[in-house]
């Protein structure tokens, strides 16, 4: 099973896949973001209670989803790296850090801008917002940690361990609105249904998809940068650059 999966994640194959898909991903992501943003800003009707401000949620929610998903992805890759010592897992982990950092910063900024007209304040130290702020600190810490070691291997090991330990914050963020009394509302979309009207909710998965394409572009370029910097003196890299 492991060997079957591993053959698809050889460094050259991953590099070539990233090279072939990166710019397509950027193009699709940019166009789809602009189209979906147009729909969200000008086509969807205003909300009965929140009026225009609810439109912020179409960028806030995808940012929130990706801030957590990216961290889970990093923790899983950290675990795989520590157990099986697969180089590509360490590369995936390193390549995802700045994406997670940006999404976490975005969720906090867009949430603050939504909070001012809705709650009357940009910021409150409630459980959801505080735990998301902790996630931002974690991303900054991991990014700093990654560049603090001369040896890539040591950095990969330490970053993997920290990423795995830090994953404890993800369920805290997710369930904070249920475990504590928070100003932040509980989930609007659950397995049992959505409290957002069907006339508006369809734009949300489309925005998530356009965020995913833009994130994939950054991720694939990060992977290429990591592969090149880790193997700059090898014949394989020379062939990859010439090929």
């Amino acid at each position, binding site marked *: 099973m492991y060997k079957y999966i591993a053959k698809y994640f050889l460094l050259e194959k991953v590099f070539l896949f990233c090279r072939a898909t990166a710019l397509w991903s950027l193009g699709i992501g940019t166009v789809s973001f602009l189209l979906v943003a147009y729909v969200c800003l000008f086509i969807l009707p205003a909300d009965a209670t929140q009026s225009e*401000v609810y439109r912020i949620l179409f960028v806030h929610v995808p940012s929130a989803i990706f801030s957590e998903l990216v961290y889970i992805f990093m923790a899983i890759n950290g675990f795989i790296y520590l157990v099986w010592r697969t180089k590509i897992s360490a590369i995936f982990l390193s390549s995802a850090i700045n994406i997670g950092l*940006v999404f976490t910063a975005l969720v906090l900024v867009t949430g603050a801008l939504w909070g001012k007209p809705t709650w009357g304040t940009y910021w409150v130290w409630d459980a959801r917002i505080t735990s998301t702020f902790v996630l931002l600190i974690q991303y900054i810490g991991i990014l700093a940690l990654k560049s603090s070691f001369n040896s890539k291997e040591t950095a990969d090991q330490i970053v993997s361990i920290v990423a795995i330990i830090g994953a404890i914050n993800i369920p805290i963020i997710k369930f904070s609105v249920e475990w504590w009394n928070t100003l932040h509302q509980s989930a609007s979309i659950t397995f049992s249904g959505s409290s957002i009207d069907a006339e508006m909710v369809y734009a949300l998965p489309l925005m998530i998809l356009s965020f995913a394409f833009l994130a994939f572009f950054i991720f694939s*370029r990060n992977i290429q940068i990591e592969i090149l910097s880790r193997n700059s003196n090898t014949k394989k890299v020379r062939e990859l650059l010439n090929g």
Partner: protein
Amino acid sequence: MDSLLLVYACYFIAFATLIGLGVFVEIKFRNQVKELQDDYD
């Protein structure tokens, strides 16, 4: 502040941040490729 202005600001910040990071990594990648090719030459 006008609420619609806040909405536009959020969309602009999200788009500019993601594209900004994209441009940053693209430039970093191209510089790295150029440096390596110069080294090989």
